[in-house]
């Protein structure tokens, strides 16, 4: 195994293991912190797969912003900080069976479908900031602009939702 393969296996094991901890831990804040480990190792996987810019965006947006938002949500909903019981629904076994079925089906499909295919990373074009910027602003401008409208509408929606109905009542509506 080459160095890249060893690093990939390690990062994959870290990602899957910490993701398992995210869904099984009894402490909600620990779940958010294990999510940081998962997302960070996924950023490392992007780096290995020659997607440099995507990796840094992953670090900035997911590890930086999304996890902080999740921690804020836990804080604002008065989530208990210690370990506690009753975080899962009563139907743990059927849910675990469904998840296992998904894992087995998807896993066997991709392994059987791409068994002999070799991923040659030595000559891959690294998706640096320059490459990604060129492709986005030369080939993908229209989806990019549509996405900015989507972000704007999501922003407006979040503001409207979090204002709540108290302010409307106070204004006499």
């Amino acid at each position, binding site marked *: 195994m080459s160095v890249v393969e060893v690093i990939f296996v390690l990062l994959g094991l870290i990602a899957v293991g910490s*993701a398992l901890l995210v*869904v099984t831990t009894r402490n909600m804040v620990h779940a958010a912190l294990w999510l940081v480990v998962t997302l960070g190792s996924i950023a490392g*996987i992007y780096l290995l797969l020659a997607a440099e810019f995507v990796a840094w965006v992953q670090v900035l*947006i997911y590890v930086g912003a999304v996890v902080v938002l999740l921690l804020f949500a836990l804080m604002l909903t008065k989530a208990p900080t210690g370990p506690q019981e009753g975080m899962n629904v009563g139907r743990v076994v059927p849910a675990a069976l469904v998840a296992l079925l998904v894992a087995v089906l998807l896993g066997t499909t991709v392994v059987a479908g791409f068994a002999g295919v070799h991923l040659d990373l030595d000559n891959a074009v690294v998706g640096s900031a320059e490459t990604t910027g060129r*492709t986005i602003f030369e080939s993908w401008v229209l989806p990019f602009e549509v996405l900015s409208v989507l972000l704007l509408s999501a922003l407006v929606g979040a503001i409207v939702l979090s204002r709540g109905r108290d302010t409307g009542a106070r204004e006499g509506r």
Partner: protein
Amino acid sequence: MPLWWPLLVASLLFAIGVYAVLVRRNAVLVLMGVELMLNAVNINLVAFDAHFRDALHGGQTFALFIIVIAAAEIGLALAIVLMVFRTHGHIDVDRLRSLADRDEVEEPIEVSPVMSR
């Protein structure tokens, strides 16, 4: 590196996300499962981008777009979660049954102290 390695990691992460969505009672923890599933899809896109040597870098660009959509989704979802917490006093998705399909016996609709004030 065989192509199926990143695809297998993505499949496992997706299944773990499915488990979190099915089994967690706290809405914020359900959202963490959704984030895991979105990341699994992104690994697939980036792996196939590297495999096909796409001149337009469609996989990486689409992964970036999905990250943006996930950011918008998490912002909206947290606004909804906070609103549910204000009106119900909890974010337990098992007990949020106001929109549920009810049986013949009518269950009393929960009125939180926040609403009745």
